[in-house]
């Protein structure tokens, strides 16, 4: 008989249980605030991939996925905080790819984000090369890896010869992208040029499914557009000055003079600024991560005329 005392007890217990559970959820929320990345810092508790492989009892794929997820989370969290170092990124990707050598996206992620300068990357292009070379060893038929290798050599290391070699190797694969042969040739002649960079980034954008890599490529393409447009605009301004003798303060006179069709706008939709000394700048330098032109002189980013990166 479900008598009254029993029902009362059951109700009390249920209420208590719900209360406690909610409380535990709250405490867990507070814990996550206090300790947001501890899991990531302790992520290399087992620093050796060999040991890990043996301990995983054959569940390599699952562990690889876990470490891959951690790598992405690690990078994302630090990137959001504008971190200047990403020391654990390479070890994480290293372990991931040792556990699962065919996890292509891990190599590609490393190619992009290990190589780039902080705060957008680890600034370790040599490590990126190391990672990709190992990936090529385990996946010799994957043309994308050769592409990434050439990319890093070209964009981040400035070694156009090595880049050309990488593209060449990749172009000789049975099911390769026809693009690689073109890039090999391009590298040889127009290593540091803007057009080359655009081709590289466009290919990266087109051939990946990973959201982060794609977004990053798009930012670069937009930056390249700025780098291309700014000198052209400055050249037009100089032509106007030569023709008329007047230093324009806005772009309107140039439009009236037929040199421009409309007010020039950057890829983010903001009109370019024309300075009295003839320099063209973007409206909002903070919004741009990768541009080399169109920046005010005090930002500290070098205003270079050519595309070659650090040696």
């Amino acid at each position, binding site marked *: 008989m479900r*008598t009254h*005392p*029993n029902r009362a007890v059951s109700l009390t217990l249920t209420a208590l249980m719900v209360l406690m559970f909610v409380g535990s959820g709250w405490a867990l929320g507070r814990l996550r605030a206090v300790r947001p990345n501890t899991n990531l810092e302790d992520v290399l508790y087992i620093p050796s991939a060999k040991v890990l492989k043996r301990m995983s009892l054959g569940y390599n794929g699952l562990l690889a996925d876990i470490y891959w997820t951690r790598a992405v989370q690690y990078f994302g969290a630090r990137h959001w905080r504008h971190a200047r170092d990403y020391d654990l990124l390479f070890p994480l990707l290293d372990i991931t790819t040792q556990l699962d050598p065919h996890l292509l996206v891990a190599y590609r992620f490393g190619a992009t984000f290990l190589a780039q300068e902080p705060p957008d990357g680890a600034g370790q292009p040599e490590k990126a090369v190391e990672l990709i070379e190992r990936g090529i060893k385990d996946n010799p038929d994957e043309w994308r890896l050769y592409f990434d290798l050439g990319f890093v050599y070209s964009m981040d290391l400035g070694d156009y010869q090595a880049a050309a070699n990488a593209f060449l190797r990749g172009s000789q694969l049975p099911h390769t992208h026809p693009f690689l042969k073109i890039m090999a040739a391009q590298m040889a002649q127009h290593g540091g040029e803007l057009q080359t960079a655009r081709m590289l980034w466009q290919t990266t954008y087109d051939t990946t499914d990973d959201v982060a890599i794609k977004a990053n490529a798009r930012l670069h393409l937009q930056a390249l557009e700025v780098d291309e447009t700014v000198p052209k605009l400055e050249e037009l301004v100089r032509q106007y000055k030569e023709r008329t003798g007047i230093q324009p303060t806005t772009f309107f006179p140039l439009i009236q003079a037929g040199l421009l069709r409309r007010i020039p706008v950057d890829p983010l939709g903001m009109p370019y600024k024309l300075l009295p000394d003839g320099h063209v700048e973007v409206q909002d330098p903070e919004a741009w991560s990768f541009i080399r032109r169109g920046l005010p002189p005090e930002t500290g980013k070098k205003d270079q005329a050519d595309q070659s990166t650090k040696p």
Partner: protein
Amino acid sequence: MRDIRKVMVTIETRNLEKTYRVGFWRAKPKVALRPLTLSVDHGEIFGYLGPNGAGKTTTLKLLMGLAEPSGGSFTILGGDITDPAIRAQIGFLPEQPYFYDYLTPLELLNYFAALSAVPAKERTRRIDATLKRVGLQEDAWTTQLRKFSKGMLQRVGLAQAIVHEPKLVVLDEPMSGLDPMGRREVRDLIEELHHEGRTVFFSTHILSDAEALCDRVAVLSRGELKGIGVVADLIGSVKGNVEIMWHGAQTVPTLRGLGLEVHTVGETARAVVPEAQVDKVIDALRAHQAKLIAVTPMRTTLEDYFLAKIGAPTEVAR
């Protein structure tokens, strides 16, 4: 008019029943106990009889609140079994109990006495008295229970059922695991409890014990109550047999012709005759000028009643 009998009833069930659902997918209901209506009076020794699997243990579990009835109701000591005040006055010994292997009888009884709200000061005295009463030798009092024989465990089980001096004692097969000496001791114990004014309700399939001890019995078979009443009445309801002895071998063929089993030793013959046929047989003997030696009614036992009710042979321990 006040129903005095109500006050004097210790256990009363009304259509108490229990059905189990066996199996997970196509749950087939298994009827363990059909609607049972009986009552146990205050101060009596009540025997709950039946073959194994009849539903005796199920009934006891329902009564003790260990399982919920599928239907019907019952009162125990005038109240509800879920009431802790009522439970404090009941002692229960389940079938084949196990106990905590690593405890000693003293520790176990201390634990149980504490749970039954026996005051701390009283405990030692009562535990010692109870252990002596159930016949457990003193050197076993501090031995861990995992070393005990079945019989010794049974004694400990009895002890925990009575250590808190309950008004009602419910025992499931209290004699199991005991040798004849032990069973005798348990019978004496039950008698003592009865003299102390406690009500004893126990289940068993040993009919001789029930016959010796009980005021009233109930017989259960396959979940159904087959009979209930005062022992003497029940026995008396079964027609008995009569043993007839006579001299006169010449009559034997005739009697055998009547379908009777006759044994002869020399001139003396002996036959067991159903009560109804006694007159007919005596007439036949007289007609053959046999000399009657003795006509003796044979004692009917509870077993006879039991078999009559159950209608199938059952294990009987004597």
